[in-house]
């Protein structure tokens, strides 16, 4: 912004004023306001032209929508009159004037705060509406949902951007690896496949092969993640041997093979969750299986440059651990803070580990101080997801969040975890979790949390809001 003086102009700035005639209605504003739309916008271009002509510049568009957009340029916020128009109309009009970047910033939801989030929408694809996988990887609040063999894209306004059909019959993992390219895999069909979303075309496939071992064929993909230049996918053969393949994003060729495991025990099965942590450049894989004797699983960390495994933990671990028999039901990595969280299968406790300082037993357990929330018991069907320094944990159909009480920067810098005070709160209301399916997957994207439930059509979208949502009962 050009500063406050742009609003009040005296004689010195009189020549910076500009008159517009939009659809017959006269507007007067300053060059600075129009220039704030960005150098490539139509309005900035018009503002450069006005000196040669004293007459108002005529634009043949709807004046009412222009009022909204001019208000946005003047104040950086959308007026309530914007609600008279659909988001589609406003987006198109913003695109016409070239102010879409300002518009996008203004309509995005406020920062996602788990303690103050509510279910705002359920996205329901028109057919096969049970999401089998989804990706919010673009980070702007848009989401691509894989349902059956289709991929439906929803843009940052959560408007349907298109649906493509893939050759797979059931996509079980998806990752948006380029702005317009999805990497998809299925537990039921071999290979990792790349689809261009805008054209709906299959643009490439990757299969795990080994020239020395003929048993390695028709490997299926269990999880996908990506870094800025590579895609990582975990492959599993029918005889359970598995590995992670690093695939170059631009050539779609296999770059390296990491962490090959025989798959003959629960501690060597294929990783079902992969996370790439850009800061030290490591890949974190985990798998949890449940059987008659409870849960067992592992977390392994590899350095993809050397292909060496740098750390691993297995649960149930050795009997020395005080938490023996309380192995994790799910783990997730907090990318922003380089920490890792697990939810214990029996106690439901949350353990936190510092990824920069991993030891044999790195876990610090978060303390539950609220008596009404204590001893919630077995979290067998828990899903854990870390997003924006908060830990979202589901238990059956309910959803709660662990968030940190605001602290001085110093404590956070020092990574003095004993002093990081976490509190658990429910995200959902009573009416939000009753008679609903079990939560299967959660993923954050932009300032939204997407939640899919078992045997429930559609994908839930949770957002925070700074509006009170007051309901008139007069």
């Amino acid at each position, binding site marked *: 912004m050009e500063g406050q003086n*742009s*609003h*009040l*102009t*005296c*004689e010195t700035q*009189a020549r910076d*004023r500009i*008159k517009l005639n939009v659809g017959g209605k*006269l*507007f*007067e*504003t*300053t060059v600075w*306001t129009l220039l704030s739309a960005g150098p490539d916008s139509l309005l900035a271009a018009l503002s450069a032209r006005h000196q040669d002509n004293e007459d108002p510049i005529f634009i043949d568009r709807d004046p009412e929508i222009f*009022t909204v957009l*001019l*208000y946005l340029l*003047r*104040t950086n*916020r959308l*007026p*309530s*009159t914007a609600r008279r128009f659909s988001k589609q109309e406003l987006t198109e009009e913003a695109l016409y004037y070239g102010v879409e970047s300002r518009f996008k910033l203004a309509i995005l939801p406020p920062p996602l*705060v788990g*303690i*103050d*989030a*509510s279910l705002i929408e359920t996205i329901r694809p028109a057919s096969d509406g049970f999401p089998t996988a989804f990706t919010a990887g673009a980070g702007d609040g848009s989401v691509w949902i894989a349902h059956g063999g289709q991929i439906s894209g929803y843009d940052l306004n959560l408007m349907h951007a298109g649906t493509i059909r893939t050759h797979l019959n059931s996509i079980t993992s998806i990752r948006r690896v380029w702005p317009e390219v999805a990497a998809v895999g299925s537990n039921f069909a071999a290979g990792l496949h790349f689809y261009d979303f805008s054209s709906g075309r299959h643009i490439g496939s990757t299969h795990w092969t080994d020239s020395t071992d003929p048993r390695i064929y028709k490997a299926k993909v269990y999880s996908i993640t990506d870094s800025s230049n590579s895609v990582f996918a975990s492959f599993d053969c029918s005889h359970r041997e598995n590995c992670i393949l690093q695939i170059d994003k631009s050539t779609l060729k296999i770059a390296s093979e990491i962490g090959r495991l025989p798959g003959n025990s629960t501690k060597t099965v294929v990783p079902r969750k992969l996370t790439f942590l850009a800061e030290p450049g490591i890949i974190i894989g985990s798998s949890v299986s449940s059987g008659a004797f409870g849960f067992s699983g592992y977390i392994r960390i590899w350095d993809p440059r050397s292909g060496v495994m740098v750390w691993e933990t297995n649960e149930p671990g050795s009997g020395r651990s005080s938490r023996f028999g309380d192995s994790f039901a799910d783990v997730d990595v907090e990318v922003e803070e380089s920490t890792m969280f697990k939810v214990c299968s029996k106690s439901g406790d949350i353990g936190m580990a510092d990824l920069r300082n991993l030891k044999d037993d790195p876990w610090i357990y978060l303390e539950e*101080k*609220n*008596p009404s929330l204590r001893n919630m018991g077995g979290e067998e069907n828990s899903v854990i997801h870390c997003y924006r320094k908060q830990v979202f944990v589901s238990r059956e159909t309910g959803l709660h969040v662990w*968030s*940190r*009480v*605001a602290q001085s920067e110093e404590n956070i810098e020092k990574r003095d975890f004993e002093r990081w*005070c976490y*509190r658990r*709160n*429910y*995200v*959902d*209301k*009573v009416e939000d979790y009753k008679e609903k399916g079990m939560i299967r997957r959660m993923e954050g994207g932009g300032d939204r949390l997407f939640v899919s439930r078992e045997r429930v059509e559609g994908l839930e979208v949770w957002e925070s*809001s*700074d*509006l*009170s*949502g*007051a*309901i*008139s*009962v*007069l």
Partner: protein
Amino acid sequence: MPTQFQSIRKKPDIITINVGGQLFQTTKQTLTLAGSNSLLYTISLSSSNIVPFIDRDPEIFSILLSLLRTSNLPSKAKTIDLQDLIFEAEFYGLGELLVSSLSNPSQFEAFNLERSLVLPLSGRDSPSVISTTDSGSLHVAHGSKITSFDWSLKKKSTILTHFTAVDSLLAISPCLAAAGATDFSGLQILDLKRGFVRETLNWENQTKSDCTVQAIGSSGNHLFTSFESGRRNSNTIMVFDMQDSFSPVSEIAHGEIFGAELDSAIPATKLQWVPGYNLLMAAGSHGGPSGVMGNIRLWDVRSGNVHWGINEKIDCFSDVTVSDNLSAIFKVGVSSGEVYFADMRKLDAVNPWICLGDGRKGLFKGKKEGAGCKIESHGNQVFCSKQGDVELWSEVLIGSTRDYEDELDERVFRKNVIGRMKDSGQSRITNLGFGGNRMVVTRKDQQSVEVWQSASKAY
């Protein structure tokens, strides 16, 4: 009015402003009303002949100009969302004028309150305590969170606290509050915008144990906090200076419990400043084998002496409040559930309480009719919650000609039940609060706050 028309001829007083392409004409005097911090005031001072240009929305400016001219909003303002008005008013420096025209305590109409809004709260915790400010902003503690609503009740923000549940909350300003709990040591001064603990206030007691917060009160200059030691054998009321970064000023009402004499020092669980008398009302009670006992004290904060006090043994208060305007103390009896009043000018009587109802009910000790009732005074009225309903007590002023046939007491108080038929029969009221022109109510197991105001004042 001829004077206004005359001023047109005196040209220098008329000011033309161009807002977003529309011309507005007004007088220097009108613009001066905006106050010296306002942008419009600056314009009124400029003497140049060039029409000043403001690059803002003209439609909203026209409404704000009407507000400036008449100090009331025109009815056409209702076509515009209040948030837009607030935002633009802030820009012109007219924020306070807008607050005082829309959310003014003087617009509170006790007899015309209607259940008008429900403010939902996130999560599954029901509100434990609420606090309001004069302008009508509202803070609600639910579980470990505090949600703050601005004076327009259109915007909210939520912060996370260290407390498991907040038991005492007092709004100091729209973005600062004091919070404490009966299971957490120390009083926290919280920045409600960023969620930071700005200050933690403690009572340095002799046993060096934790001190929990039982009640918070404020006189505008001083912050009063009733602390109890962690071992629950001593308690006090600390006075902090609100102007001087909450430094401790003095300590009053220090009490120690010796042996089993629990009644010797009951911690105050309600603190209320009585500005008309310059006294602090402190009241506390506890339930024992012989029923509920308690005491009410009026403290002179400067000297640290008790101005007046009463020990309550029969039909002890369930809640108590002082009405400055009515010069009376009101309580609701825990056994009877009836409202009593004590005239502040006749406190020296042996039993100052006069029951406004059937006083005999209070003699049955086993009964708990009044348990959980809340009583609060606001303006010239006293509000008492009984289960799901709110009773409104007001004084009927009787002229000097008093007839014995009227059978009227010296002071006449009468009650009404607030609300319509459809509002009754809801769950028990847990908090009553007053701010701006509204009454706010929370109920047991409801994850929301109810707002009552006169419908004509609702924006």
